[in-house]
């Protein structure tokens, strides 16, 4: 086993409020109320701003100086919640507590019960703060809050945990039927009130690597079995995911043929990727599974940075990357130095540094997109590998144009940033 080196915290990052973007779209009857500062509102505006005109089902309760100096939280938040209920009629409100309430020890979660009693609208209190290793973990907190309200059961059932699109869910459903397994339930579903029963005989299968918290919560509180495997990204991951799921029900099923067929359907894209090299910059927590499937597609993985490794939850993914340098919480400067040394053909990176890396001659695929595109399963594999291949093709095509015309793509002239003012 390799030893992932843990570096410092100087890095570029996004906020855990970001998952509200895909969660509020998935749960059509939900509303997300974020208790936080003007910065939280600014973040939501910047990150999700395009949706502002459809009467967005998210808003920020911006704290003022009264709130900071100890005003009663329930008293402050109640009129806002009543206004939201009157205007939007949501079936459920996610009451998000951000960094500042956390620092002030404001009891935002404690408002949920009285507000629910008062309005008759389901309240899910959840932490949506920036203290998690990765911004995708906002979804983890939302799902944990929902698991708390799931009914219990003794029945043997499957709950697929993690926000998926209808087409990804359809594949999960059809595969379970084909394997003779119980029909899976999904959390979240299209309604925020649609909660699957979870009990000691439930097989809880997380489809995203950033759901450690909700999975451990369910295990602790409900004693359910954890589907311990790789995540269903790429033909290889999907095969292992389904085979392990069948094994949980005592069935031995080989999906070797399915995996082969899926690779065949990806061949057009795999042909572009095969033999090229890739590095991952720490970002979404998807780095381990993506590196695993790109390696299976024939790419050389030079180095992987990831915000955090959950030793047990990510064990299979880690094992699949044996022999590859993996860096937990990489330092920005060290990361740049490594990229310089490795000069990979493709860098998977976040938006903050994508342009800076392009400016240094790297080919970048920005990764945030992968969190909200339907890329799971055999069915999503061509889309998943296609995104990397499309990026590679584009970079290849532009490089040919530059070579043929002998024209360099010079970054916009802000050269005063390049040179240190001091010798």
């Amino acid at each position, binding site marked *: 086993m390799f030893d992932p080196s843990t570096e410092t915290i100087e890095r570029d990052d996004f906020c855990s409020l970001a998952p509200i973007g895909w969660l509020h779209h998935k749960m059509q009857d939900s509303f997300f109320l974020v208790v936080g500062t*003007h*910065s939280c*509102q600014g973040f939501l505006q910047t990150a999700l701003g395009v949706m502002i005109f459809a009467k967005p089902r998210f808003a920020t309760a911006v704290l*003022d100086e009264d709130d900071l100096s100890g005003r009663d939280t329930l008293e402050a938040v109640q009129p806002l919640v009543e206004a939201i209920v009157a205007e939007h009629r949501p079936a459920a409100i996610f009451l998000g507590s951000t960094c500042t309430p956390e620092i002030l020890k404001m009891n935002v979660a404690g408002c949920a019960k009285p507000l629910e009693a008062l309005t008759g609208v389901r309240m899910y209190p959840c932490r949506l703060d*920036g203290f998690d290793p990765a911004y995708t973990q906002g979804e983890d907190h939302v799902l944990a809050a929902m698991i708390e309200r799931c009914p219990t059961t003794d029945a043997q059932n499957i709950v697929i945990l993690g926000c998926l699109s209808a087409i990804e869910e*359809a594949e999960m459903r059809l595969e379970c039927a084909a394997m003779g397994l119980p029909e899976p339930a999904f959390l979240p579903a299209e309604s925020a009130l649609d909660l699957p029963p979870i009990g000691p005989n439930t097989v809880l299968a997380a489809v995203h690597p950033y759901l450690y918290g909700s999975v451990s919560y369910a295990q602790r509180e409900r004693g359910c079995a954890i589907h311990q495997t790789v995540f269903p990204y790429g033909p290889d991951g999907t095969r292992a995911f389904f085979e392990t799921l069948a094994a949980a029900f005592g069935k031995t099923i080989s999906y070797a043929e399915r995996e082969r067929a899926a690779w065949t359907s990806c061949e057009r894209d795999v042909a572009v990727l095969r033999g090229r090299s890739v590095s991952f910059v720490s970002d979404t927590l998807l780095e381990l599974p993506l590196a695993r499937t790109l390696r299976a597609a024939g790419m050389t993985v030079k180095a992987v940075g990831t915000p955090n490794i959950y030793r047990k939850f990510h064990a299979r993914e880690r094992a699949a990357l044996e022999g590859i340098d993996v860096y937990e919480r990489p330092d920005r400067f060290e990361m740049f130095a490594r990229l310089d040394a490795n000069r990979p053909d493709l860098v998977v990176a976040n*938006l903050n*540094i994508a342009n800076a890396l392009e*400016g240094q001659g790297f080919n970048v695929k920005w990764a945030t997109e992968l969190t909200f595109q339907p890329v799971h399963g055999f*069915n999503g594999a061509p889309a998943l590998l296609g995104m990397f291949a499309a990026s590679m093709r584009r970079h290849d095509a532009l490089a040919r144009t530059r070579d043929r015309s002998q024209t360099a793509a010079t970054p916009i002239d802000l050269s005063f940033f390049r040179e240190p003012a001091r010798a």
Partner: protein
Amino acid sequence: MKLAVWSYLSPAHVGATKAASSFNGVHTIVRAPKGDGYGTIMLAMFERLGVSPPLTISALTEATLAGDRADIGRMIADVDQRLHPEMIVITRSATASVLQEPLDGEIAMIPPGTIAAEIFQPSVHPLRDNEITAFAKTVAEIVDHFAQDGIARTPEPSVNIIGPALLGFHDHSNVVALRRLFADLGVRVNAVVPLGASPDQLRALGSAWLNVSTSRELALPTMQKLHSRFGTPFIEDVPYGEAGTTRFLRELSRLLELPSDRITAASREAKLLWYSRTVDAHALSGKRVGVFGMPSAVAGIARVLHDELDMHVEFAGTFSLDDGDWLREQLRDLTDDVLVTDDYQDVANKIDATRPDIMFGSQMERHSASRFGVPCAVISSPCHILNFPLGHAPFLGYEGANHIGDVVNQTQVLGLEHHLIETFGPRGQGRFAEAAPEGAAEPAAPVSTDLSWDETAEKLMGRIPFFVRKKARANVEKYAREQRIATIDESVVLAARQHVGG
């Protein structure tokens, strides 16, 4: 608590960061939760920087809450040793300020002589300042810190241009346009502040004969400071429009004692007033316009539209509450209807109630106006990446006047955007794109007699974003025919997607 969905101005730390990051040789460390650093993304994306912005987030973590100290000293040392800035600016977001960390104490503990950069904390209040005041203060204080006394005046007439910055509205183009303009007049540009100003240039700011700005509200504290330190006169008016630029240059010539024929030579570029005389522009007379945005931009653009194009200013306004009175005074002879509000809904309601022929505003007015079928030109921050053009598109000086003419021209004929919004609706795209908004035309399903779709397949297709549904349907049917499948169910839809890819 106040419910907020959208706001014109960013929080104070973003204003301070925009200002400090724009200097050359200054690195900013923002003490904040990681998400408060979203300004970094805006910098990197909108400005299309080919390098990392000179900006580092010192992130609050779980450990901070448990009582760990910020260890800002280590981060300062790191930035100092790796990036060699001349100054390191430390600023905090509102959240970090609530924590009341003893950053000053930590900074004081840094062993003397170990850090080559100067460490500077602007006096920005994370809650009471806003983006504009925090920006203006930060620039003024950094300028005051570096500017040296006893610097001789430049031999030739010279100006400092105060206000342009990263993420500023068309600031790169404005700086180029103003540099050309001053070159035509034989006036040297001593420094542009903060955009690209190096510590050496800042030390010599006192050598300029005059200070001018691209935005009064962003530059005034700096110009006042330089006036009090060096007695340098300054011009508050910003050169918008052809007549406006000539007025500005006349004042400039008076203060710099330039011969007046130089203005005539410089104005040879200007075409706006001639355009306004041409038959093509006659239809602009009396057209009703609304103007809303940053105070200087609104004052400047409203006057151009009224004085130079003979349009009628139906209403004007700003979201900078501090500048409402100033703006009213500026527009006294143009309109009584000056709206001062930071609530975008108030502006949308105003557009709805007055239905101007053309709206001039920020990105938000562009969205609001399109809901009412009113064409809108963006003339002010906050703006989207569309207003970081690759080409030269200034709003100031004679070249800027020409560009404003083009903008008016293009905006009034462009009905296309309205049409697109009607067709595609306001909803976001992507994985969970919803069904077509009310009133939008559903693409018709192709009539296929040889194939039937069962309920499961129809349901799944219903969840596919409506704008790709027609193409997806055709792909599925093509696949079904190839595979000789007569009845399409959801498994066929899935197989087709995997077959086609994407």
